């Protein structure tokens, strides 16, 4: 990428740098207006040298309620990045990032976050997070549309980031 001179500071600033190329050459990453970063092999453009973990995940349409972000360095060293943690993209040896699906994910019930194990869970297990039971409450899931009640006899697949609501039981066969 061609360098550009900033008149005020007279510093040489790269327009866009590829951090993997610099890591492979073992060179220091210069200041730049944007950084090309690999996440799960996909190249994304980041316009700050210090993005947060959550911001980087969002570049590949993933969220911290379901995925974690892992820094990959030269010499096979890996570090987990927390969602609110700032990453220095100019850190020596940083090659890029990979994501991994979390085992303990976050779901949202009535607007509040709760941690739960990924996989198939029962309606009762999910309602228990808010101190409710299927005898007294309906569990509704908001999935590609408005909240709809979930069958109490079927497992609920949890991958992370699901949005649930509870509503008091108010109907019965007669």
């Amino acid at each position, binding site marked *: 990428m061609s360098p550009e001179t900033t008149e005020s500071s007279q510093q040489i600033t790269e327009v866009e740098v590829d951090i993997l190329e610099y890591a492979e050459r073992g060179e220091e990453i210069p200041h730049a207006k944007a950084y090309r970063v690999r996440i799960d092999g996909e190249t994304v453009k980041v316009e700050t040298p210090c993005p947060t973990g959550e911001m980087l995940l969002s570049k590949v349409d993933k969220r911290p309620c379901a995925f974690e972000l892992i820094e990959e360095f030269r010499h096979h060293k890996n570090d987990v990045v927390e969602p609110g943690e700032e990453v220095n993209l100019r850190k020596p040896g940083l090659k890029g990032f990979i994501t991994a699906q979390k085992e303990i994910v976050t779901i949202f019930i009535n607007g509040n976050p709760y941690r739960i194990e990924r996989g198939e869970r029962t309606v009762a297990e999910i309602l228990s997070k808010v101190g409710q039971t299927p005898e007294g409450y309906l569990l509704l899931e908001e999935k590609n549309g408005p909240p709809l009640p979930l069958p109490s006899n079927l497992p609920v697949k949890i991958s992370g980031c699901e949005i649930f609501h509870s509503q008091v039981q108010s*109907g019965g066969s007669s």
Partner: protein
Amino acid sequence: MEYSKDQLEELKSYCSKLSAFTEGSVTFLYLEGLRLPEGCQQQVCCGLLCPVPRDGYPSRLYFSEQIVSPFARNWNVSNARIAERNWFAFSWRVELVAPTLVQILVAHLAGFTREK
């Protein structure tokens, strides 16, 4: 009976088209493309919500067809003729104090998801 704009807007999210009509003295809400809960054999159908007492129930939800759901229901209304169309309903009593239209709808849809 008049329903607030907010309640009607909220109800709209459950179907592809919402309209209202009055037959006799009752205002029905017609929900075209009504989304059904997970586990039902059909994902959508047409629904007719009667939010006021009818047939001895505090409210009723009619369907354009009998729905196969995780729990068998007592379909005690078959081919009821409303607005020149046949409708089906299962026996389900919803008792809520001052419910919104969506709360009534969801409580009826929950009939597909609960044993009793």
